[in-house]
């Protein structure tokens, strides 16, 4: 058995919360810079230029790149040989508490009906899976509401097939317009069940931009969807232009013979994701 102390998890989570808010990952930064070089619209270039200047300032001065430092979403893979000396959930929540306080991040979590802020950005949303081995992998994806609010889920009829899926994805992005802070990354979950397609869509957003989908069919679908979305003309911040999405990521899972669940989870240009292995 590999012993892991929960206080180490708390420390790592604290640091991840702060660095995710301030330091944009290179895959996203490079995709935005590539879009800036290609964008034809003058206002589109102005917006992309400000976005690049912004994440460079945030990185240098250790400032949150966006004031919406998000609700804290985690994907945790626990090796089956790992033994913890306490609660994983408590350790992660304590890390969030410390990170959001000590990193001067905005606390954006509240009771859904009473709308009272919990004051420390907890509870985190934690998805856990048991895997082989003796390591603990923690992935964080703080999620802002601007893009999350534009996300959708639909139970399609199997007869609607791939054209139905494409139509739903493109319509979702069209209706979102400038709200989710384009250029966006579009996460699509196909199949599974009602809740699973949403989790697949979210999980797909954690894949680094520019890495091909290992499934050839899904890779092709990603390319076709990206072209259709960028042909909408929404552009950076919705002011018109060629860059509406930086990437489309699709994950799929077998589903019931009578179902075709599809979820579209939109990620803004501040595509924050970090991971650590203990």
């Amino acid at each position, binding site marked *: 058995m590999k012993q892991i102390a929960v206080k180490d998890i708390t420390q790592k989570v604290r640091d991840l919360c702060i660095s995710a808010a301030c330091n944009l990952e290179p895959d996203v930064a490079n995709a935005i810079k590539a879009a800036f070089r290609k964008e034809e619209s003058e206002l589109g270039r102005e917006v992309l230029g400000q976005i690049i200047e912004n994440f460079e300032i945030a990185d240098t001065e250790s400032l949150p790149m*966006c004031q*919406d430092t998000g609700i804290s979403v985690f994907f945790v893979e626990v090796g089956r040989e790992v033994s913890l000396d306490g609660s994983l959930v408590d350790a992660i929540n304590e890390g969030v508490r410390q990170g959001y306080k000590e990193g001067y991040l905005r*606390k*954006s979590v509240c009771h859904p009906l009473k709308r009272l802020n919990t004051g420390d950005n907890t509870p985190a949303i934690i998805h856990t899976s048991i895997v082989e081995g003796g390591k603990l992998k923690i992935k964080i994806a703080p999620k802002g509401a601007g893009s999350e609010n534009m996300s959708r889920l639909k139970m399609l009829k199997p007869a609607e097939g791939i054209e139905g899926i494409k139509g739903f994805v493109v319509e979702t992005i069209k209706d979102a*317009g400038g709200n989710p802070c384009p250029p966006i990354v579009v996460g699509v979950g196909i199949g599974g069940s009602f809740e699973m397609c949403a989790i697949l869509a979210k999980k797909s957003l954690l894949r680094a931009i520019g890495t091909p989908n290992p499934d050839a069919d899904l890779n092709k679908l990603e390319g076709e969807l990206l072209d259709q979305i960028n042909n909408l003309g929404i552009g950076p911040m*919705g002011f*018109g232009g060629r860059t509406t999405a930086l990437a489309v990521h699709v994950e799929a899972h077998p589903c019931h013979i009578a179902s075709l669940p599809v979820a579209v989870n939109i990620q803004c240009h501040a595509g924050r994701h970090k991971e650590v292995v203990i």
Partner: protein
Amino acid sequence: MSEPVRISAPLTDAAVEKLKAGDKILITGVMYTARDAAHKRLIELLDAGKELPVDLKGQIIYYVGPTPERPGQVIGSAGPTTSGRMDAYTPRLIELGLKGMVGKGARGKEVLDAIKKHKAVYMAAVGGAAALIRRSIKKAEIIAYEDLGPEAIRRLEVVDFPAIVVNDVYGGDLFLQGVEKYRRVS
């Protein structure tokens, strides 16, 4: 690339009439922050026939909930939030004399009608450019609803705050015009 237009806040009718959808602007002067919770309270005061904590005549509201400032900082990161969530409240504030709004994303029909009728302007700042935008904010002071934390109403003094005109008094709409120009029918 066209040069930005410099405007001062609060705004006058004459200043608003000069602005066209698509103009890049730099705002210098005073703006007030408010988002969902503060708007709700303002409308509740109006419903109760009470006075607002700030006279909105000529003013600009910036839809923002900043991160907490570190010791010595004027304000934390402070980019725009989605304006559409304020649509239910905005027309009444425009009727009271509110002249400008800064946020991100599209507005509803009632807001666009009020903008034309009462001569106001809707501007967008770049969503997510919060560390850049904070540099143009030179002073920030909470004037109401401190208990709302990031959603408290703040009086900001800004210099060269970068924004883009989205909806002007003539019915111009940058979102419609921009998409029309770059859309490819497949």
